[in-house]
């Protein structure tokens, strides 16, 4: 997962690019068997202990998801922590420093 957080005019714009197969669970392989679903279910971002962003993803989101969101009250040099969990118990967490525009 790559995270980029940029502060401008008291607004922090966060961009996230996650490497994840996001398998829907409805596809069939060459033998006709269903490929089991494997997708991110929840993603959230924390800043100074507070949740600033939360999203429920699912099989409707395609491979290697990209998200962008904004929140107020963040400053250059502070940390935004982005994490996700998927339906197989996988997870990832990345801390990113807020940079200037």
């Amino acid at each position, binding site marked *: 997962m*790559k995270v*980029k957080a940029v502060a401008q005019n008291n607004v922090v714009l966060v*961009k996230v*690019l996650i*490497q994840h197969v996001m398998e829907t669970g409805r596809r069939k392989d060459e033998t006709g068997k269903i490929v089991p679903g494997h997708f991110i279910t929840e993603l959230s971002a924390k800043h100074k202990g507070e949740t600033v962003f939360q999203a429920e993803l699912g099989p409707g989101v*395609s*491979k*290697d998801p*990209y998200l*962008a969101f904004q929140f107020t009250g963040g400053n250059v040099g502070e940390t935004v922590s982005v994490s996700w969990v998927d339906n197989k118990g996988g997870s990832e967490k990345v801390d990113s420093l807020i940079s200037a525009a």
Partner: protein
Amino acid sequence: MKQTLFKRSLALLLVLVAMMAARQVVAADFQANVQTDIKVFRDFFAARFPEVKFADYANGVYAIDADACQQWKEIEEFPPYSIAVEDGKVLFEKPFANGKTYTAYFQNGGVVRQNYPYYDEKKGTVVTLEMAINECRVANGEKPLEYKGGDIAKISAYMAFISRGKPVDVKVESEGAYKAYMKGKEFFYAKRGQLNMSCAGCHVKYAGGWVRSEILSPALGHTTHFPVFRSKWGEIGTLHKRYGGCSDNIGAKSFAAQSEEYRNLEFFETVMSNGLSFNGPASRK
């Protein structure tokens, strides 16, 4: 008797000299022909899009549509192909089973995008970067990779990325190269498929026009930015994958990726982009 012999050998000498001169004229001819083709190509687009700077043609449709350009610039801040570039770096640096690496084969640390495609005199055919990657693999006892996407596209993406800014300068200096160039040129302009359309029909004649909801990119700059992360594919893919898709779209049976037909087409298209800079990999719709 001596005089006749003398006259005859003089005549023969003159014929030989004429033949040699003719060969040289032919050689100079096709270099001039290629230059003329390039000029005609560029002039067409300069007239069609007078506001667009020559260097910007490397950005395809984003050079000719402001709204699309703005969206693309935003995507470029955090490009979807960056994952492929990172994966490509890992693949490129990993040694083969025999201990050798891609770097030993390609030299210059892999900054070689600008050397492809080229006409290989010994092989008598056009060699592209993806073809060279597989040649390197096979030469080192590895299995060749599939040509449309996956690992080969990732390696190509990494090599394109580290070669960004290098000039497009494809040479057409021999008869063999010119023949390949002309085959590519014919492919580009000939109509094919059930829809009876040519590459030029959309990307020259109707460049900037609409095909359903999309704007047609100008052919000038077509091959500078591959491989691409295409939103439609959801992953990185090669130029020949795109060629195949286009063939399908117009109801023609596509050729195999890295077939001679597509390599000649890539050769022609890249020659037409001489003077621009390589700027791959890129994001496209």
